C-alpha cells in the first residue's frame, strides 16, 4: 500500500506535469501556428507580387520582372524558388536557382494553398501555390483611346486574361524553425525548472499537510493497554479524519471496558478461588494441629470434599463459558415439550422455593421444541434457580412460555428485585453479583446468568433481562418450535409443575 504522501505527490505531481505539458504544447503549437501564419502571409505577399508582375500581352504570358527585384530568388545561400505553369501544364518560368520542378498541390483559383515541403536542395521549406488569371496588357494600337497620346498607360488595364497560371513560391523555413526550436528549448527548460520547483514545493506542502496525521499517529501510539482510558484529542484531527478519530475513540472506549472487565474477571476469579482455598487450608491445619477423634477427622474431610466440589463447580462453569465463547461445543438436536422440561428443572428447586414461601405461577402451552435438550435444560435450570434464589421471602415467581412465529419465548419473572435499570445490564457479566449483601460467599459465584446467555446464544437464541420496579424479568427466545397443541396445560396437583396456578394478573 503506497503511502498517502507518495500518492499525493504522485497524483498532484503527475497532474501538474501533465497540465504543464499540455499548456506547453498548446503554447508551442499556438506560437508555431502564429509564426507559420505570419510566414505564410509573407509567402502570399511574395506570390501575389509575382502574380501581379505576370501579364499577358499579345497573347503571350510573361513575367515582367527581373530576379534582382526579388533578391531571395537569385542568392546562392538559401535561395527561394518560384515556378509558373500555364494551364496546359507547361512550365512558364522558374527561378534561376531552381533546377527541378517544384511540387504542385491541388489548388483553386484565388484560393492559395500552403504546404510544408522539402525544397529541391533538401532544406525544410514552405510553399504557396496560387492559381490566377494574369493581367492582360493591351498595345497602344489596340487601346480604345489610342487616338490620344495623353495619359495612356500601357499597363493601366483592368482586364484579366482568360489563361490560368499556376504559381508556386517556395522558400526555406530555417528562420522560423530555428525560432521554434529555440522556443521549444526555452519551454522545455522553463517547464522542467517549474516542475522541479513545484515538486519540491509539493513535497514540502504535502509533508506539512500530513503533519496532523503524524501528530495523530504519535498520539495514538502513546495509547497502550496501560492507559486505555486516554483518548485521542479531536483538536489534533483535521476535519477530513475527524470521523475516523471519533470511531477510534469509541473503539478505545470499548477496549478499555473489555480490559477492565478482564482485569475485574481476574480479580474476581482470584477472590472467588481464595476463599474456598482458605476454607480448605484452615480446616486441614486446624485438624492437624492436635489429635482428634475419628469422627471429627471424618467431618473435616467431608468439609474439605464439599469445598473441593464447590470449587470444581466454579471451575467447570468457567470452563463451560470459555468453551461456549470459543464455539468449541457440539449440539445434539432432540425434541422435547417445554412444559416437561420446565417441570424437570423445577423439581429440585421447588423445596427451596417453598422454604422461602414463594408462590409459583405457570402459563405454559403445549409446545415442542427441537434443540439440544441438555443445554436447554441448563439454561432453564439457571433461570429458575436465579428466580428462586433472588426472590424475596413470601414473594412470587411467574413462568410463561409462548410461541411467536418460529420462536419460543420463555419469560421468568420474580419479585424481590433490588437492581436498578442500569445495573441490570451487568447481570450477564462474569462474577457480577448485584448485591453482595444478599449472597453468602460460596453460594453463588455470579456465573449462572453468564452461562445462561452463552448457552442460549449457542442454541441460536438470545436472552435479555430487565427490571420493572420490584420485578426482575428474564426473557429467553429460542428458534424453531413445532406447535403440538395450543392449550394451557392442565397440571393438576400431581402434575409435573406442582399445583395448578392461575396466571398472575
Amino acid at each position, binding site marked *: 500500500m503506497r503511502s498517502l504522501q507518495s500518492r499525493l505527490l504522485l497524483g498532484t505531481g503527475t497532474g501538474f506535469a501533465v497540465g504543464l505539458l499540455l499548456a506547453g504544447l498548446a503554447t508551442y503549437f499556438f506560437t508555431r501556428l502564429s509564426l507559420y501564419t505570419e510566414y505564410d502571409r509573407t509567402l502570399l505577399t511574395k506570390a501575389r507580387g509575382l502574380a501581379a508582375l505576370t501579364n499577358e500581352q499579345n497573347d503571350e504570358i510573361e513575367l515582367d520582372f527581373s530576379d534582382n527585384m526579388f533578391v531571395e530568388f537569385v542568392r546562392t545561400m538559401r535561395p527561394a524558388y518560384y515556378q509558373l505553369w500555364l494551364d496546359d501544364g507547361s512550365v512558364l518560368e522558374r527561378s534561376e536557382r531552381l533546377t527541378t520542378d517544384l511540387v504542385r498541390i491541388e489548388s483553386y483559383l484565388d484560393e492559395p494553398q500552403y504546404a510544408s515541403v522539402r525544397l529541391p536542395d533538401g532544406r525544410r521549406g514552405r510553399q504557396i501555390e496560387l492559381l490566377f488569371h494574369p493581367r492582360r496588357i493591351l498595345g497602344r494600337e489596340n487601346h480604345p483611346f489610342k487616338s490620344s497620346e495623353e495619359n495612356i498607360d500601357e499597363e493601366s488595364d483592368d482586364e484579366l486574361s482568360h489563361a490560368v497560371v499556376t504559381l508556386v513560391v517556395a522558400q526555406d523555413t530555417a528562420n522560423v524553425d530555428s525560432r521554434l526550436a529555440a522556443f521549444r528549448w526555452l519551454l522545455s527548460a522553463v517547464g522542467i525548472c517549474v516542475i522541479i520547483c513545484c515538486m519540491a514545493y509539493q513535497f514540502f506542502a504535502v509533508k506539512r499537510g500530513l503533519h496532523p496525521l503524524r501528530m495523530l499517529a504519535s498520539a495514538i501510539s502513546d495509547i497502550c493497554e496501560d492507559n486505555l482510558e486516554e483518548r485521542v484529542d479531536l483538536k489534533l484531527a483535521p476535519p477530513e479524519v475527524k470521523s475516523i478519530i471519533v470511531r477510534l475513540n469509541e473503539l478505545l472506549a470499548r477496549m478499555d471496558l473489555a480490559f477492565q472487565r478482564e482485569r475485574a474477571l481476574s*480479580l474476581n476469579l*482470584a*477472590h*472467588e478461588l*481464595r*476463599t*474456598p*482455598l*482458605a*476454607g*480448605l*487450608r*484452615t*480446616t486441614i*491445619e*486446624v485438624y492437624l*494441629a*492436635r489429635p482428634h477423634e475419628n469422627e471429627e477427622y471424618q467431618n473435616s474431610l467431608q*468439609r474439605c470434599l*464439599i*469445598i473441593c466440589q464447590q470449587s470444581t463447580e466454579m471451575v467447570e462453569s468457567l470452563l463451560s463459558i470459555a468453551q461456549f465463547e470459543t464455539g468449541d461445543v457440539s449440539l445434539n438436536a432432540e425434541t422435547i415439550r417445554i412444559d416437561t422440561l420446565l417441570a424437570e428443572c423445577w423439581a429440585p428447586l421447588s423445596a427451596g422455593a417453598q422454604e422461602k414461601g414463594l408462590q409459583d405461577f405457570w402459563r405454559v402451552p403445549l409446545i415442542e421444541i427441537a434443540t439440544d435438550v441438555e443445554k436447554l435444560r441448563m439454561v432453564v435450570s439457571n433461570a429458575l434457580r436465579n428466580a428462586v434464589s433472588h426472590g424475596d421471602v413470601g414473594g412470587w415467581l411467574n413462568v410463561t412460555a409462548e410461541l411467536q412465529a418460529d420462536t419460543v419465548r420463555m419469560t421468568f419473572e420474580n419479585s424481590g428485585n433490588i437492581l436498578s435499570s442500569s445495573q441490570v445490564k451487568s447481570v450477564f457479566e462474569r462474577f457480577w453479583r448485584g448485591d*453482595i*449483601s*444478599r*449472597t*453468602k*460467599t*460460596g453460594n453463588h459465584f455470579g456465573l449462572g446468568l453468564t452461562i445462561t446467555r452463552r448457552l442460549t446464544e449457542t442454541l441460536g437464541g438470545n436472552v435479555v433481562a430487565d427490571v420493572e420496579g420490584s420485578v426482575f424479568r428474564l426473557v429467553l427466545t429460542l428458534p424453531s418450535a413445532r406447535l403440538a397443541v395450543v392449550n394451557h396445560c392442565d397440571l393438576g396437583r400431581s402434575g409435573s409443575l406442582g399445583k395448578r396456578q392461575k396466571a398472575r394478573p
Partner: protein
Amino acid sequence: MRILIIEDYDHVRDALTKGLRDAGFAVDAVADGNEGLWHAESGEHDVIVLDLMLPGLDGLSILEKIREKNKNVHVLILTAKSAVADRIEGLNLGADDYLVKPFVFGELLARVRALVRRKYGEKNPIICVADLLMNTASREVTRAGEIVDLTAREYALLEFLALRAGEVVTRTAIWEHVYDFHSETQSNVVDVYVSYLRKKVDLPGLPKLIHTRRGQGYILKKEPP
C-alpha cells in the same frame, strides 16, 4: 480471651472457630454483617476477626461503626482482597491487622495472640508474676521452674488473670472474656475453674498467687507476707 469471628463462608468460619477454641479462646462466630455489628457493639471481645465481603453489611462499614463508638477492641481483617489499596483502606479505617486469604492458621493464631497482648499493654510474650512464667506463644506455664499442666480453659483463665495481674478481675469479666456463651452456662463455672487453677498453680509450699476479693472478683499477684 474472647474472639468474635464475622465470616460468611461456612467452612472458613467453622474451621477458625474450632481452631481458636482449641487454642483456648472463647469464640463467638456469626455469618451476617448486621448480626456481627450487633455482637461487636454489645459484646466484650478482645479481638474481632472480620471478613470484608459479608451479607447484610460489609466489613469496612462494620469497622467504621465500631470505631465511631470508640469500642476498645482490636480488629484483624481477614479477606481475599489483597491489593495494597485495600490493605491501606482497611488499616486507615481502624483495623489493627490485615491478613489475606488463603492464610496459614498458625499465623492467624499468632497475630490474634499479639493483638490480645497489645490490648492489655503487654508486649512481652512471656508474662511473669512472681515465679509464675507464662509463655503465651508456646502456651507453656511454669511455677518455680516446674511445668504446670493446664487444660485449654484453665490456661485461658490464667492468661486472662495474668494479663491483668495486680488488678481485680470480676467474675463477669472472666465470664465474658473466657467462656463460650453457647456451650456453658454461667452459674458458678468461673468459681469452679478458679478452684481448679488454684490447685495447679498455688501448690503447697509456694506463695499463693490467685487471691479472692470478696464481692469483687479475683486478682493474680504475689501478696506481701
